[in-house]
């Protein structure tokens, strides 16, 4: 069954069009990530699905029902906000239970579901504390718990990790992935972080300026980007784009080569001078200025002794290079 179907969604604020003609589907149990730079409309799209904003035109279908004029609470969704948005005056337990209480669920049901969520999220020792007594990571878990107890058809996450520090972010990312496996619920997750997108998603939706650029599995998008924007957005370090590359491209077009597909060779089609070296232990990134005066990044696996100022030669396999035309469309 299809968890969510969006058909031709348009959304404008006054004269500004933030979403144009967005259509996509989310299958039952699928983890879909909306990714894009800030201002691309990904959060607005999530809010349209939640019902916090109305689409200017187009239809939103959740679980086979058109919900355009259904209030958020009746859409069978639950949302986790960027700022957690916990109720500051309620304890962890009451934060999770308030929505169920509003639905007039019997007390025993509320207790049962809240207890299960508290157990699942390892919050037992904090259950009677207020949000202000919790750390960022714990608050995040309470916010997720508040979503779980609603037993929604569809989970919506709005940049849930952006307020956490790097170490915690990785842990929480893994917890969210584990949660998805355990609940096997449909989830939509908005982020601007391509790592989160790549690691969590079954399906990535890349958005730019309110339009869907490409939809596909992480590896599909990585191996087979539809255009220069998607190619440059996914993968770290970002793909190199050369206007004066060693392979012929269309007029004004560019050649795209991922940093990890370049290799040092005694003789190569690209030569240049190393301007900076980043040694990460497991990887070494070389920033190189080519003879055509273009900056490129080379990702070498393992440790490398190349020094700044060295002149190096690089090569790559032709099938690993992408060609883009003047408009950024992929040429095959």
């Amino acid at each position, binding site marked *: 069954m299809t968890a969510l179907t969006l058909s031709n969604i348009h959304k404008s604020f006054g004269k500004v069009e933030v979403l144009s003609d967005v259509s996509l589907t989310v299958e039952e149990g699928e983890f879909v990530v909306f990714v894009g730079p800030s201002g691309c409309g990904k959060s607005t799209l999530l809010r349209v699905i*939640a*019902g*916090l904003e109305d689409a200017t035109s187009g239809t939103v279908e959740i679980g086979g029902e058109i919900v355009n004029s259904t*209030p*958020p*609470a*009746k859409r069978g*969704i*639950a*949302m986790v*906000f*960027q*700022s957690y*948005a*916990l*109720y*500051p*005056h309620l304890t962890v337990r009451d934060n999770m239970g*308030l*929505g169920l209480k*509003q*639905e007039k669920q019997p007390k025993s049901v509320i207790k049962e579901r809240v207890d299960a969520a508290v157990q699942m999220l390892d919050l037992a020792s904090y259950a009677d504390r*207020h949000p*202000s007594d919790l750390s960022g990571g714990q608050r995040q878990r309470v916010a997720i718990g*508040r979503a779980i107890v*609603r037993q929604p058809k569809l989970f919506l996450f709005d940049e849930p990790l952006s307020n956490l520090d790097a170490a915690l972010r990785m842990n929480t990312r893994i917890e969210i992935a584990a949660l998805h496996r355990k609940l096997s619920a449909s989830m939509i997750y908005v982020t601007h972080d391509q790592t989160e997108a790549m690691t969590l998603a079954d399906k990535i939706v890349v958005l730019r300026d309110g339009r869907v650029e490409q939809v596909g599995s992480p590896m599909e998008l990585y191996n087979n980007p539809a255009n220069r924007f998607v190619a440059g957005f996914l993968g770290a370090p970002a793909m190199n784009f050369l206007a004066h590359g060693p392979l012929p491209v269309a007029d004004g077009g560019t050649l795209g080569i991922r940093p990890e597909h370049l290799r040092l060779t005694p003789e190569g089609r690209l030569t240049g001078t190393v301007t900076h070296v980043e040694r990460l232990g497991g990887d070494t990134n070389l920033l190189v200025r080519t003879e055509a005066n273009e900056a490129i990044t080379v990702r070498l696996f393992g440790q490398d002794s190349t020094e700044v100022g060295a002149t190096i030669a690089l090569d790559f396999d032709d099938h690993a290079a992408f060609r883009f035309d003047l408009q950024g469309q992929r040429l095959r």
Partner: protein
Amino acid sequence: MRKHENSPRFRWHIVVFLAPAVLVYTAVMIYPLFNTLRLSFFAEVDQQRVFVGLQNFHRLFGDAIWSNQFWNALGNNLWFFLIHMLVQNPIGIALAAILSHSRLRFAAFYRSAIFIPTILSFVIVGFAWKLILSPIWGIAPGMLDAVGLNSLYAPWLGKEEYALTTLSLVSVWQFVGIPMMLIYAALLSIPEEILEAAEVEGITGLSAFWKIKLPLILPSIGIISILTFVANFNAFDLIYAAQGALAGPDFSTDILGTFLYRTFFGFQLQLGDPHMGSAIASAMFLIILLGVCLYLFGIQSRMRRYQF
């Protein structure tokens, strides 16, 4: 030598920076306060000021002529306060809740219109309402007549049973803008995302107000209550402007402020007595102090401050 170097130097700059505020505050607040307290222990005997200990207070609470007036004024004052708490503050909160609704048009206009009476002088408000409610030249009887409710009209300011309530409501009309503004600001500081999270859970409209907004503005309501308490027990101007220092009819609108004024400065046939006046002022000070302490230690300390 080392010990000398390590011993903290007296930090003169702290004294220098504090001095102006301390001096001004002492001159206009602390000195008069303590001088009033001191004055309440004296009396004038044969045109000589003599120390009489607690005799003034003994007279105030023991002599029926004084104590009846005092308890009457205190009782009236409590009623005055009660009306403000039960009418002014709930209406202020309701207005703020309505004004903070994003779909209300002309919100800025209503906000200013409701707040304007607050900046008017008591004299204007007291006199204007006296004219409005007057049975002879007032527009109130005419307006009630126009809608066929003439039978409801009574000379509210002239009847013992209504006068105090009427004046309390006039004061409510004048000052309802203050709780409204404070609560309005508190409501605006509630993050949008919390309300949206509630909306996703179906908590909207009135239940959002009772379950989310009201608990979050409780600290502000506490502040408003204590401000109302202090202002009401120090009130004087409106009663004086509307009813005069005799707080008529038959002292039915007499509150502590007007009682103090008559005693201290004298009025008509009553001679001024600064020492008895100081005793009343001291009693007022202690009542307010007690109220504020009860609030600070009993309520405020138990209230949670919410950081968003």
